[in-house]
């Protein structure tokens, strides 16, 4: 028959001691400076919100970068030749001039594709301004030639322009450089804005952590003083506070990741549901590997910011004491 351990106090003590040795820690594993649940819970919420803003701002930068890459890559590998009808020019028909242009362009090294846009496609481009069905047959619409080039070996644009000018003085070669530069200015502004928001959220988080740490130091003044007087180094005391904020930062960061991913999934769903030709240029909020890696940095960053801020604050405050 098995003997109940409660009948043997010595065995119980041995077991208890053995267990303590195995745990290798204090009985209760209690932190010397305990977390303050009443202030830490709202603090978790506030830091999580800050992390969420940081995630949105950082993700926006990534999205803008991707969109700008797509836009500029598409545009910089494309040229457009515009041939305007000139009133009174009847020497050569426009169709013949377009044929000549296509011939020259296709023979130019670095050009991978050259094709004329159909009248219907050209009319579509005008519809946002003139309205569908309002374009009269007689309206002299410029003829457009879409040219795709090899970006690794681009054609000599100046030479091409000169050749075009010889056969059709009204032909205009557009390499979209102006459009590209405007996009870049706008994109850089948006990037700057998102980065400013990111920096502001980090600064706000640091300020919140400074106030929370100071409040913690005031609330735990007795403990800090005892530790100090029995020989604890400032760094030991700081570490006791840091541990709380590492955990707080990590938890807040992971909450923010969940919130940010949910937001992007909802946004992605909305865009794919309502996307049409009018908003085709909007960046798609899909989550790529780089986004996930960035999001994973949020809790780590939050923990790091909170820890360093706490350490700095504790060392500064107790550094003023003897």
């Amino acid at each position, binding site marked *: 028959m098995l003997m109940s351990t409660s009948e043997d106090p010595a065995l119980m003590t041995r077991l208890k*001691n053995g267990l*303590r*040795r195995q745990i*290798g*820690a*204090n*009985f*209760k594993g*209690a932190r*010397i400076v*305990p977390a303050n649940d009443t202030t830490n819970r709202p603090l978790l919420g506030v830091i999580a919100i800050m992390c969420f803003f940081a995630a949105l701002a950082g993700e926006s930068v990534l999205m803008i970068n991707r969109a700008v890459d797509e836009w500029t890559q598409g545009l910089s590998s494309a040229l457009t030749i515009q041939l305007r009808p000139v009133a009174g020019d009847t020497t050569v028909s426009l169709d013949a001039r377009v044929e000549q242009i296509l011939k020259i362009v296709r023979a130019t090294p670095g050009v991978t594709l050259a094709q004329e846009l159909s009248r219907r496609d050209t009319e579509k481009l005008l519809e946002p301004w003139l309205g569908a069905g309002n374009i009269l047959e007689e309206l002299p619409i410029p003829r457009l030639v879409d040219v795709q080039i090899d970006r690794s070996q681009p054609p000599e644009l100046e030479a091409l322009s000169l050749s075009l000018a010889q056969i059709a003085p009204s032909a205009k070669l557009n390499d979209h450089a102006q459009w590209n530069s405007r996009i870049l200015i706008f994109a850089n502004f948006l990037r700057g804005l998102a980065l400013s928001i990111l920096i502001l959220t980090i600064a706000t988080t640091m300020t919140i952590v400074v106030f929370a740490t100071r409040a913690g130091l005031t609330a735990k003044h*007795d*403990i800090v*003083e*005892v*530790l100090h*007087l*029995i*020989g*604890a*180094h*400032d760094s*030991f005391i700081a570490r006791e506070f840091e541990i709380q904020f590492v955990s707080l930062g990590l938890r807040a960061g992971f909450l923010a990741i969940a919130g940010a991913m949910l937001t992007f999934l909802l946004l992605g769903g909305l865009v794919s549901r309502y996307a049409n030709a009018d908003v085709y240029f909007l960046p798609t909020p899909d989550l790529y590997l780089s986004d996930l890696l960035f999001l994973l940095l949020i809790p780590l960053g939050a923990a790091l910011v909170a820890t360093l801020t706490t350490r700095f604050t504790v060392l500064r405050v107790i*550094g003023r004491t*003897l």
Partner: protein
Amino acid sequence: MGAEILRDVSFHLEPGSFHFLTGASGAGKTSLLKLMYMARRPSRGWITMFGQDLVHLPRSSLPEIRRRVGVVFQDFRLINHLSTFDNVALPLVIAGAHPNDYREDVEELLTWVGLGERLDAKPPTLSGGEQQRVAIARAVVAKPDLLLADEPTGNVDPKIGQRLMRLFFELNKLGASVVIATHDEHLVQKIAAPVLSLENGTLVKRPPAAKGA
């Protein structure tokens, strides 16, 4: 600058000495102890301890000296959310000791002060006398070179008080200097030890009282 609490205070404690610090309430006993356990620096004057000039020592060097000084605070200053065991082990934890290395010592010490059954108890659940014993155990656990005790037997019954005094003597025998601030003239009379007496902020040294007087 506030009122001058201590003046013309000059004394030297030999290693391994045992002194009482006496004086009426407000005479400056606690202030003198605070200077000795480095909670305050003197507005003027000079204090050396273990060969170090405490007045001019940078604060970053103070923790190492504080670790050589065990203090029994008048108000105990126990950490309420930690167990009795953890409170006593605190100086060792701060010094970086591993729990396996100090567990038996702490348990033995707590048993010695009569709290062997209350290792897991939190200070708020202990009586005043028990808290005082925890405070004493914490002060002596790291075997300090100097023990400063502010009214260490004020809240305990005479029997426990004697036991605690034996603890101080044991520590003293191991080479620690001991200074016990007390009101208890009976204790001072009973134990033949030199007395540092504070009277109106000045220090008067008295030879050991005749034993049993």
